[in-house]
């Protein structure tokens, strides 16, 4: 029986592969991401991932979340670029607004407008590209004043407020992707064997097997995998399994113009990430940290890990996820105790009742 939790040196071997290639993954260095979304596009193109609203006719939504109109990872978006505008600088970097009045960040306003609507939305807005504004539904809207969503405008930042409101300024941009966990929650709970561990150590859904039970959706501690509407099957990043087989790098890494997304053997990527982290710390970017690199974390380390410039939750990532399978033995033990109590109650009821 394979291990349920903790560090694991040979994931593919643990899954039964013999003489397999080394484990591969992504190192996404968000400090050099420019938010071009080439990864999102390349992924959609190569993997023929449909636009979200394929069956609804429209492909584009404006989500009121800065430049992010994808929302989050899901069945129809296997890469997702997050945009966070912050009133501070990165390290000793010059924001480039010297002499210009730059207004306060619009993010609090945006979030304040988006958040309550999301919670009212179906599935709490965890549906990909959930529009935070009511669509279609006839509301007495003509009476409602226009709301400022903090969307990027055409005037220069601060033009309306003046230099006294100037703040420092930086963008956090990060391309999120399936983590291809060492202990993958989705893979563990899949009841059909549709999800499997490849010889490269990645986690892939076999579309001809998946029957859309939806267990993986709730099993993933990162909220990555989802069921595709109108199709009924679970979908997520395959780390371009087909390209790997041909010795090519995944489409997103190939398309990334700044090498923010780096593909390679996981061991080598981890070393590279450590060097990059040390370099950034030397440059005074003390807030830089690696996310998902540690094999001792709750999922045994991620196959796709990140260099972040703020807390993970700022990017929509869970700060300390763990694979639910960690507690499986304890849970079954409790269930066994409960089952015994149930049977005992039944026996006792009839023994006490006697024969008739």
């Amino acid at each position: 029986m394979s291990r349920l939790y903790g560090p694991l040196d040979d994931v593919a071997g643990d899954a039964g592969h013999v003489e397999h290639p080394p484990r591969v993954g992504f190192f996404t260095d968000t400090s050099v991401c420019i938010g071009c979304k080439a990864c999102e596009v390349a992924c959609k193109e190569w993997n023929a991932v449909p636009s979200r609203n394929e069956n609804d006719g429209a492909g584009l939504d404006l989500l009121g979340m800065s430049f992010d109109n994808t929302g989050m990872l899901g069945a129809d978006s296997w890469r997702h670029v997050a945009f966070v505008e912050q009133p501070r600088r990165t390290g000793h970097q010059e924001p480039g607004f010297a002499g210009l009045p730059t207004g306060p960040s619009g993010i609090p306003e945006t979030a304040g407008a988006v958040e309550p609507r999301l919670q009212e939305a179906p599935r709490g807005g965890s549906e990909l590209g959930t529009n935070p504004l009511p669509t279609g539904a006839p509301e007495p809207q003509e009476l409602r004043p226009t709301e400022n969503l903090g969307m990027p405008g055409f005037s220069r930042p601060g033009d309306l407020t003046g230099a006294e409101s100037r703040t420092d300024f930086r963008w956090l941009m990060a391309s999120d992707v399936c983590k291809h966990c060492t202990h993958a929650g989705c893979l563990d709970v899949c009841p059909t064997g549709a999800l499997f561990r490849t010889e490269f150590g990645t986690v892939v859904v076999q579309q001809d097997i998946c029957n859309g039970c939806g267990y993986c959706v709730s099993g993933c501690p990162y909220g990555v995998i989802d069921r595709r509407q109108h199709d009924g099957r679970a979908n997520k990043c395959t780390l371009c399994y087909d390209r790997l087989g041909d010795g090519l790098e995944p489409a997103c890494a190939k398309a990334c113009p700044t090498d923010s997304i780096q593909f390679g053997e996981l061991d080598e990527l981890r070393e590279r990430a450590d060097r990059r982290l040390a370099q950034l710390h030397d440059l005074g970017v003390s807030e830089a940290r690696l996310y998902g690199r540690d094999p001792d974390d709750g999922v045994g380390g991620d196959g796709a890990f990140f260099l972040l410039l703020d807390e993970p939750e700022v990017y929509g990532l869970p700060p300390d996820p763990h694979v639910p399978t960690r507690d499986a033995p304890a849970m079954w033990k409790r269930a066994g105790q409960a089952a015994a109590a149930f049977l005992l109650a039944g026996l006792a009821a009839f023994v006490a009742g006697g024969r008739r």
Partner: protein
Amino acid sequence: MTGPDPAELPSDAGGSAARSAEMFQGVGRRGRHRRRGGEPTVVPEAEFRSYYGRPVLKAPVWEWKIAAYLFCGGLAAGSSVVAAGADLTGRPALRRSSRLGALGALLASMYFLVSDLGRPARFHHMLRVLKPTSPMSVGTWILSAFGAGAGAAAVEEMVPRRWRRTWPARLLRRLARPLGISAAATAPGVASYTAVLLSHTAVPGWNQVRDELPFVFVGSAAASGGGFGMLCAPVAEAGPARAFAAVGAAGELLASRVMEHRLGLVGEVYREGHVGRLRKASEALTAAGLAGTLLVAHRSRVGAAASGLALLAGSALQRFGVFEAGVASTKDPKYVVVPQRQRVDARNTAS
């Protein structure tokens, strides 16, 4: 994570930036006005940061059918235990109704489970593998073993009089008892595995009740199985069903209270709003059913039926309450971020 504690970050950004950083915290939440009993009160909310308030997790794709299955599966399990007991202790009316009830609940379960799949025509893909790490796979096989016994025992009850003499009917009659007992033997698995099914997820509202949920669910199953017997069988035969129902209802009430009591932040989703109302109604119905079972069900047919119905309704609402609580806990990033952030911070302070 190898990052430094954010509290130790040098304030290289200057004083005004610190003020603005404060403002940026608006992405998280500090407090919110809520109306409670007409009085506007500020409920201090956990401070946390998030990405535009977007949920971190995906809300379950499961619909109400899964909650309905949780109830029907429990009812089938409880009824099959009552049926086997009634069979062995000479209570034909209780046996007959419980066997039929178990089959009906089982068929409803199958319908709910299959129709909730994204690809219902592929339901049999569940039978490709037996996977110990997947409670759904384990449950599929438990349910298959249970279904064979419970189904055959119920079919025996439905053989028309004119076919009773034929050899298949006589064979079935001989096998009905051992098959019924096999169903009762697997019933505890059916009643309890669904708790692991829910808890073995990243959903905070289900994962964090993993210690108590099995007891809530088996209690609910026993209450509904016994309650069904009380509803359908004459008072004279239903003694053991009353005892089973009473023990189950008491266990369910107790375990449910303990569960709610032990929950931290995510306890909110169990207490507030729609879920809170569901759970209050469930508790009231189960308690009323329990009282009726103990006080009137042994002397009044109507009282027994009413108590049985109350127990069944209480059990059903319990399942819907727990199900909805989990769904609600995925919709607010708070329930994911806050406990995890506390863990990380505690670790950072320790090291």
